Structures are given as C-alpha cells and as structure tokens.
C-alpha cells in the first residue's frame, strides 16, 4: 500500500487506491470473522467493519515519522499504517512472524517501524502516551505528530480527560481522533454520555475541534490533513470527531441483542463507506469485481502465510519481560 504524495485533497486516481485499501481491510476482517468462527483464532477479536474510511482517511494523511496509538478494534488502523497483511494475520494466529511476534494478539498489535505504538486493550489507555510522544517531539524540535484513535466509550474515562487537558495545556503536536460509532460495547451513547455532541468535551479544554462524516473517506482525509498540519505547525493539538458506523457487533460472535436490526440493516445499506466511494468514483461492476478478487487473493495469501508460520516455543513466554 504505497502512500500517495501528501496533498490537501485526494485526486481521482488516488481514490481508486483508497478504495482498494478499504476493501482490503473489509475482506481481511471478514476473513478474520470466518477463521475465528472456524475455531482457528484464539483470543478476543473485534472487527471495525463499517469504519474503514476512518482508518484509511486518517492514516493516508499521516507523514512517515508520525506515530499512532490504537484501540482494541485495531486491524484497520494497523493495515492502514503500513503493516503487511501477512504480518497482521500471523499475529492473529499467534505466530513468531506476527507484527507483535505472538506476544500481543488482536488487541495488542504493534509495528514500531511503521510508527504503530500499539493497539490498547484498556479503553483510553494509549491517550496519555500520545500526549507524551508528542511532548518528546516538541522538546526535540522534530516536525512529527502523535495521533490517538479511540471510540466514544473512551470519552468517559479519566485518561481521556487527563490526556487532552495536558496536551492542550502544553500545546504539544498531538491529534485525538474520536471514531464515534455511538456504541460503547453494547451500551448506546444515550446511556453513557449526558451530552450528544462529544466534541464539546474537547472544546471544554479549549482544544481546536473539527468534524467529518466518518463514512466519507475524502472528508476524513481532508479533515485529518488540516488537523495534522495544525499540530505539526506548532499550533497545538486538535480533536477530530468522526461520525461513523459499526456494522458488526462489539466482538465476533456478539448476537447484538441490544441493537435494532432494521436500523442496523438500514445503516449498512445507506452508510457503507466502500459503497459510497465506489459510487462517487463511478467504478463499474466489472472493475470492482477485479479489485475485489485482487484483495481477496492478498487476504487468502495472508491466511496461508500465517498458518505456515512458526509457533513460538512455550518458554519464549519468559523473553521480552525486560529490556
């Protein structure tokens, strides 16, 4: 997934590539669901089907030296930040070839070389560290930005408030990306937050706040670019509020008894970021099918790579405890 040259908006040619990347993430996660149900994948798995435009739009806007912290729903962020699908799939299979060498799994995906400081299984857990990484960039005078992804559920936890407060107070080059899918696991926003517009929380710290439709990858990209330019330019952190939709359950296998099925179906029909982009660039059915078979092949190859990977020795569990 070669990065396009950075510019304020995406050209039509880029959009085809963006579509390909989003479709790769979609097919990757569908495959993860399938292999989990087949009993091949251990652990907890959370897919972000429906939220691909957030991952791709934001990560496209990042520069090479920028770093991210992700969440328990991290496959899309990880692929979009440059980790090879083979390495990601191998991690989900617990193999040494995995991006965390079998020590992390789906909720702890790392790829430091590509600027991924880790998915985090503690809600809000990565946010203070993004403020800290941004502080290091500021102290060293490096033109880099640290960026945190998190969901609406995280806006209620202390680390969110403490990290944003300190980032704004110290004017560090950080960007805080809220992927607002309106669900904290099974709890709807109406039951977890007393306010409807969660960007008000950033404004309370005096932080610049911008919004975009999280299903429109172009809008996400443009908004993220603006936020990153602002932070990189030394003008302080930015809060990016993306309105998105989680098509799937909280975890693979979640029966979603808490969710209105008609509403979920309607959102899938009307708000699919891949379908929206496909319509926008007027991609023919034939071309889409070609693209689809191309990415499906990559995903199948990733599964083969992962299955052929090396199991860690049990006693490897005692390595990497200390540097």
């Amino acid at each position: 997934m070669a990065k396009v040259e950075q510019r304020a908006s995406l050209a039509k040619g880029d959009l085809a590539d963006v579509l390909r990347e989003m479709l790769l993430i979609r097919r990757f996660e569908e495959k993860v669901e399938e292999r989990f149900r087949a009993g091949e994948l251990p652990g907890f798995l959370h897919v972000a089907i429906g939220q691909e435009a957030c991952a791709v739009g934001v990560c496209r806007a990042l520069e090479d030296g920028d770093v991210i912290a992700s969440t328990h729903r991290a496959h899309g962020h990880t692929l979009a930040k440059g980790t090879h699908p083979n390495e990601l799939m191998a991690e989900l299979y617990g193999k040494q070839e995995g991006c965390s060498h079998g020590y992390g799994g789906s909720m702890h995906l790392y790829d430091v070389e590509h600027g991924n400081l880790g998915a985090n299984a503690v809600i809000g857990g990565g946010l203070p560290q993004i403020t800290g990484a941004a502080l290091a960039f500021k102290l060293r005078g490096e033109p880099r930005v640290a960026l945190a992804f998190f969901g609406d559920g995280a806006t209620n936890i202390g680390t969110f408030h403490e990290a944003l407060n300190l980032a704004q107070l110290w004017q560090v080059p950080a960007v805080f990306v809220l992927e607002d899918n309106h669900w904290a696991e099974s709890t709807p926003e109406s039951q977890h937050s007393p306010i409807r517009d969660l960007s008000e929380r950033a404004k309370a710290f005096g932080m610049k706040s911008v919004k975009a439709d999280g299903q429109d990858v172009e809008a996400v990209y443009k908004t993220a670019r603006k936020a990153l330019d602002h932070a990189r330019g030394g003008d302080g952190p930015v809060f990016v509020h993306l309105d998105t939709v989680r098509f799937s359950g909280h975890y693979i296998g979640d029966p979603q008894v808490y969710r209105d099925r008609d509403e979920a179906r309607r959102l899938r029909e009307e708000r699919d970021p891949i379908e929206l982009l496909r319509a926008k660039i007027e991609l023919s059915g034939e071309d889409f099918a070609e693209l689809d078979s191309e990415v499906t092949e990559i995903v199948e190859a990733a599964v083969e790579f992962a299955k052929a990977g090396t199991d860690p020795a049990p006693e490897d569990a005692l390595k990497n405890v200390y540097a």
Partner: protein
Amino acid sequence: MPELTYREAVRDALVTAMRQDDDVFVMGEDIAEMGGSMGVTQGMLAEFGPERVRNTPISEMALAGTAIGAALQGMRPVAEIMYEDFMTLAAEQVVNQAAKHRYMSGGQLSVPVVFRTQGGAGWSPGAQHAQQLEAWFVHIPGLKVVFASTPEDVRGLLWSAIYDDNPVVFFEHRTLYPIKGEVPDEIEPIPLGKARIHREGEDVTVIATGRLVHEGLKAAEEAERDGISVEVVDPRTLQPLDEEMLVASVKKTNRAVVAHEAVTRMGYGAEVAAVLQYQAFDWLDAPIERVGSKFAPLAFAPVMEQFVVPNAGDVLAAIKRTVGK
C-alpha cells in the same frame, strides 16, 4: 568524600544526568517553583527552565502516561509521584502500559522511565499519605523496583534507574530526606539487583528496606550488648532481588529477620522469607521472623501511629526470638 543529605543526593543524580543528557527531564506536581513537596527539586527550575522541570496538573494518569509516551520515543523522563498513595491513581499506566509495552510488542519497544515516589509514617499524615506500597509493584513482571535507604545508595541507584531501559518504580522514604551520609566525589552507579551488607555479623541476618535499615542497625547495636552478633543487609533493589547475597548471609548466620515498614501481611517480606526457606532451609536454626506494620490503615493520632508501625524495638525483639533469648 563529600557529605550529602538523602534529599541532596536524589537531586544530585537528577541534576547531573540533566546536565549531561538532553533526553533526561523531570515532571511532577509542584516540582518547579515550589521544588516539590519534599524539596527534592529545589533550585532545578532556575538551572533547567520550565521545559525540563515540568510542573504538571494534579493528574497522575496523565503524568505517568505522558512520561511513558516520552520514554517510548527514547527520552528518559523522571516522573515524581508526590506520595506513594497516589501511585494507585497512576497504576493503570504503570502496570498495564509501562510494564507491558516491551512484552506485548515482542521486544520492539523499551520504556526507560522512572517513577520516583515517597511515603512513610512518623509524622501523623494519616491513612492516605504514608502507605508503603512496594508489594503492589514487585508483583508486576516488567517493572523494576528500588527502595534506597542512604544518600550514597539513593544517588547511585537513581542514576542506574535513569539509565536502565526498563520502567523503574523508585521508592524514597519521607523520614530519610534529612539524613546525611558520605558519598563518592563523582556519582558511582550502583547496579540494580545488588544488595548491600551494612554491617557484618555471625548470629542472625536482618534483611531490611527503607527506614527499617536504620532501625535494624539500631537494633543490631542493642543486640551486640546482649552478645548477639547481627548482620544487616539491605536488598536496595526489590526487583530484581539479589537472592544470592541474601541466601549467602543466612547460610552464614543460620537465622533471619525480614523487616519493612509496609504491612507485614502479604508484604514483600513474605517473598523474601519464601526465597530463604527454599534456598537455605537446611541452614536455618529458627523460624524466619518478620517485622512490619500491623494490619490496619495508618491512624492519625501519634500514639496509634506509633503502635502500628515497626521500629528498632520490634526488630530487636524479633532478633531475640530467633536466638531464643
């Protein structure tokens, strides 16, 4: 050899590291103009400025987490957590994040951060400003834990902690800040994981940490008058533990007293006792004695506080029990 207070020795390690290394900086609550609640960072703002002597809000999760984030970028931050009790607020970042990043990333990351904190009874702070919580942190794989008891040790150990590539929880004891002691002219790093024999003896080994090192030395002098020869050993680093030196000492004396100010029950001393009984069982001539606080929060009224925390008298009584006197 110059003489420094324990407080000055901590400051000397920080200042010296910051003079030679731009990646070292300190952050914490009230550490700039005020110089810290214990006065450790006094004068440092004037020399290094507010970027490197960073006052933070009262916000332990962000304070700890921000230090971790800077460490992930290769800086060597020293975060001051004003009271050890507040480590409970920082605990999510210290336990789930700092201690785990290297491991969960399969060795891709290191987290060279120090969390300096202090606690200790003896001045009626009550139940939320003087706990000794080292047992919480020695239980976490991925953390190193230090508890220094003298000016020389605190300076040399803090230096090593700053330059260690792992997260280190560095305990200081409030009542030790004014004590004076000789230190080498230049900072001599003390490797983490090396115990120190403070006093050699033949009949019983007192393994003590923090303030109890000094109480143990007082008790040893008293015991000497009764004809009991006491060896006093300070592990200094609680994780990793210098098992070799502790076991060797007990194999020589055949008796052991483990002493700390933290609550005895489930305390750090229980692990030390377990190590000794596994590795020196056949050498032991008496049950291992343990000294620590009684199982209660720290009371405010001085008479109650004194009743709860251990002192030299408690160590002496334990020594005598081991030799049957």
